[in-house]
């Protein structure tokens, strides 16, 4: 059993699994050499890092290319203003329900909903990983259900559909559920070690849709698309940004085994009371207040508090940080230091 699975299953991991993700936009907002120095210094967070050539720049995802609108296989049109920052959908193909008559959902045999995918090549790569004793994680696209509906209809239209009990919405959700289900079955059939279902369901305060709306329209779809992974005993990982406190019981009830949520938005004490020792928390470390504007000492104290309050010797805690431009480099270092230090808090 790998260390991550030990943490998820409360089987005494060697250390708290820590992930530090650097958004692609950082490479033109920071001094690259300085970031690479930090990556070299932090082997636990970046175990396989090899310093690239000095003129290296990332290849940006199609949804994250400034001034290059991208139309995804569902027909949603993405825009961004900064290379590396995932865009937002400004062109909603079903903004007018009239378009539903001629709209076709993307084909799960050729896409993941966001990009074209050569599944045969992917399946070969997964098989190679497994043949070499490794494992791979499966996952739907970020925003597989609720956000996908928002992208197709527009957020406000979608909420009005739910309130008005628009029958076409039920039809659309059925199509989307079938699409996602086909993807999940593929990952499960290929033996993924875990299955991720990332969404964003929360605002800064409160949910993006009411708990009643979630129960009626989204939860049944979640239950269907999580079932194959659940039946296969594969850990189910669910991410959501924002305040999801009023939705979280229903989210967990859908079949989730690892919940990835934001620390300060939901509250460290609330998360600890709710989940400590019961469900594995993949804690999304603050990127709105303490890490961008606090001191290195405050950052250290934050990570210590989170580990001590939410973690246990048996496991049940993993942590992740997403670096975006605007965080002072000394704070980036302080955070990396703290994550590597407190990873061994219970060891």
């Amino acid at each position, binding site marked *: 059993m790998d260390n991550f699975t030990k943490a998820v299953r409360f089987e005494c991991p060697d250390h708290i699994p820590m992930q530090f993700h650097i958004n692609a936009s950082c490479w033109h907002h920071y001094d690259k050499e300085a970031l690479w120095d930090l990556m070299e210094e932090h082997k636990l967070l970046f175990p396989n890092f090899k310093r690239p050539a000095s003129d290296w720049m990332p290849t940006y995802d199609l949804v994250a290319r400034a001034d290059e609108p991208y139309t995804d296989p569902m027909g949603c049109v993405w825009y961004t*203003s*900064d290379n590396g920052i995932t*865009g937002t959908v400004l062109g909603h193909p079903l903004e007018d329900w009239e378009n539903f008559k001629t709209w076709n959902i993307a084909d799960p045999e050729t896409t993941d909903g966001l990009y074209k995918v050569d599944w045969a090549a992917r399946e070969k790569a997964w098989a190679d990983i497994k043949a070499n004793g490794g494992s791979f994680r499966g996952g739907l696209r970020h925003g597989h259900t609720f956000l996908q509906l928002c992208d197709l209809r527009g*957020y406000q239209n979608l909420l*009005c559909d739910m309130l008005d009990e628009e029958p076409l919405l039920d039809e659309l959700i059925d199509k989307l559920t079938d699409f996602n289900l086909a993807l999940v079955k593929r990952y499960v059939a290929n033996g993924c070690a875990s299955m991720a279902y990332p969404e964003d369901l929360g*605002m800064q305060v409160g*949910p993006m849709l009411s708990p009643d709306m979630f129960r009626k329209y989204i939860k049944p779809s979640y239950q269907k698309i999580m079932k194959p992974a659940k039946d296969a005993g594969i850990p189910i990982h669910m991410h959501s940004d924002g305040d999801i406190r009023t939705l979280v019981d229903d989210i967990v009830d859908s079949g989730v085994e690892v919940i990835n949520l934001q620390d300060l938005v939901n509250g460290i004490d609330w998360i600890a009371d709710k989940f400590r020792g019961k469900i594995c928390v993949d804690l999304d470390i603050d990127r709105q*207040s303490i890490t961008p*504007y606090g001191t290195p000492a405050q950052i250290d104290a934050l990570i210590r508090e989170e580990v001590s309050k939410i973690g246990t010797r048996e496991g049940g805690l993993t942590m992740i940080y997403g670096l975006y431009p605007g965080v002072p480099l000394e704070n980036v270092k302080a955070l990396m230091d703290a994550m590597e230090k407190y990873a061994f808090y219970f060891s």
Partner: protein
Amino acid sequence: MGILNEISENLQKGKAKAVKELVQQALDEGIGAETILSDGLLAGMSVIGEKFKNNEVYVPEVLVAARAMNMGSQILKPHLAASGVTAKGRVCIGTVQGDLHDIGKNIVKMMLEGKGLEVVDLGTDVSAEAFVNAAIEQDCQIICCSALLTTTMGVMADVVKAAEAAGIRDKVKIMIGGAPVSEEFCKQIGADCYTSDAASAADAAVQFCMA
């Protein structure tokens, strides 16, 4: 329950069709358009705004209430115009240049309208100059700037500078909001007001317009 209370109650529940019908019924009963607006529609939005501020309701409830208000307002519009009723103030609003995330901006807009203010929606990705030009051309008392990204919030400082350069800084208040923005940042760039939620923003805007 009086018809104005009924309008308010239905609006709070987001029942747009009922609000529309009740507004028409109130007009038919001879109630003045201004009274229907203030004691029916705006009264209902005010309750929603307070509940939103106290975390008793959330964005979805605000959104559907605002939709109901808009439908009621459409019926009232010609009657209000005919009787010379004007808005309490005029605000231009948008997300700053480079920022395309408009959910927060749209919620603030709804709250402002719910307080009886006229809103000029400049949309997303609005340059500092466009904010200032709109304020001048549309005679706005307030500019509201929204940002979600740390990489775009700096444009808010440009809006303050552009207002100074255009010579309107003493005539227009600049309000800022969004996830990465803070009171400290507001002071730092010389804006007039930061609020952490949309309902408080609307309250502050009304105060500015009444001053």
